[in-house]
């Protein structure tokens, strides 16, 4: 991801700032410029609290291999790692890593809360991308 794109996504990644339609009050995460329900174009920022429930999850034990080290976008995570679809309390769903727990403890329906973590390093010389992951609570 190019530096300007990382920079543009900081509000979403750091603080779960999505959008709300001022007309029909529908909430969106990630950011949308047009309301899917009523077509409104004047969407406003909306900060989500960062609490939700696991809808479904998967544990990746064999990620895509990179034997030649060609990929310079290095995710800040160990293998295996857990990724879940999370339904935020306010409604929208997002995909995020579940960290700081034994994988046996992850279950559909469990409550999670947001944490601030390193997401990706763009090589040893590039920028560090920070953002949201979740943990059981």
């Amino acid at each position: 991801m190019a530096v300007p794109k990382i920079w543009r996504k900081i509000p979403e990644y750091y603080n779960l700032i999505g959008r709300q339609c001022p007309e029909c009050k529908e909430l969106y995460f990630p950011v949308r410029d047009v309301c899917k329900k009523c077509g409104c174009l004047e969407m406003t920022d909306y900060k989500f609290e960062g609490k939700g429930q696991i809808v479904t999850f998967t544990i990746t034990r064999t990620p895509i291999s990179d034997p030649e080290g060609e990929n310079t976008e290095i995710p800040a995570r160990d293998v295996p790692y857990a990724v879940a679809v999370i339904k935020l309390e306010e409604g929208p769903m997002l995909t995020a890593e579940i960290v700081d727990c034994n994988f046996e403890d992850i279950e559909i329906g469990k409550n999670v809360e947001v944490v601030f973590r390193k997401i990706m390093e763009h090589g040893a010389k590039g920028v560090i991308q920070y953002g949201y992951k979740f943990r059981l609570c």
Partner: protein
Amino acid sequence: MAGIVAWGSYIPRYRIKVEDIAAAHGGDAEQIKLGLGITEKSVPGIDEDTATIAVEAARRALKSSKLSPKEIGAVYIGSESHPYAVKPTGTIVGTAIGLSNDYTTADFEFACKAGTAAMQVAAAWARSGMADYVIAGGADTAQAAPGDPLEYTAAAGGAVFIIGEENVVAEINQTLSFTSDTPDFWRRKEQKYPGHGGAFTGEPAYYRHITEATKMLMKDVGTKPEDYDYAVFHQPNGKFPARVAKLLGFTEEQIAPGMVVRKIGNTYSGSSLLGLAAVLDIAKPGQRILLTSYGSGAGSDSFDLIVTGRIADRQTKSVESQINDKVYISYPKYLKNTGKLA
């Protein structure tokens, strides 16, 4: 009078036991535990660094303070493991806690006392009226080369304080420093791990600076060790702060509540500040706290703090609960989490 308005702490969940580090290097775990006065240390997650630790601690401090982000005028984070050599940690923290753009920041560095140096500057800002409230603190993912004795203690964690003149829970009655050019511990540019002078880090470095700064402070405010309910000294291991306390005339009862090093190791810039956070978690109105940090290179910042009647509103026993909320990991996993093994 300027003082602490709120505090927040963060300790990563992972721990490694002295036994597991000793087994990797053929060390005698029982002797090391006795010699260093620690049993285990905290380890960062593979996705945690000084910025993420400072953000979590600052979010907790801000939430506890009930202040609006708009009231924060400056952010000063001290560390010896800022994620970037050039690009301030303070900008990441400021944005992640919801500050807009009308604040100032710069990163602090002074070995293990960078966090208390940041607090002194924050207190000066508050006293002068240049800002209503300032965020200051220390966080580190401490580095130690595999096999170096430092590896038994170098840990991860941090504590962040909001300093202001209003809504104070602990007044900063006085703060002063004792500073000299003493090369006891250092890290050269572009080096991954620090170097140190071994036993030289003791008498002319840690002990001299802490005792001189503490004596200067007590002389200045006219106090004796028995006037304090709690004393917190920098905690590179469990032994140094216990000995320096004894040399200065403080008792085990005064230092025990702040001795977090025994359970989580030395969190460098977070070390004495996590000790202070643990004490604030249990302190009562009217009690007096002495805090003296130590940073290699070398200097000590000493603080005379008096707890106010507002303290109970902020107490969550957060340090104690985080110390007890832990997951043990193996030595290879520790090497991965700290970037020593790809």
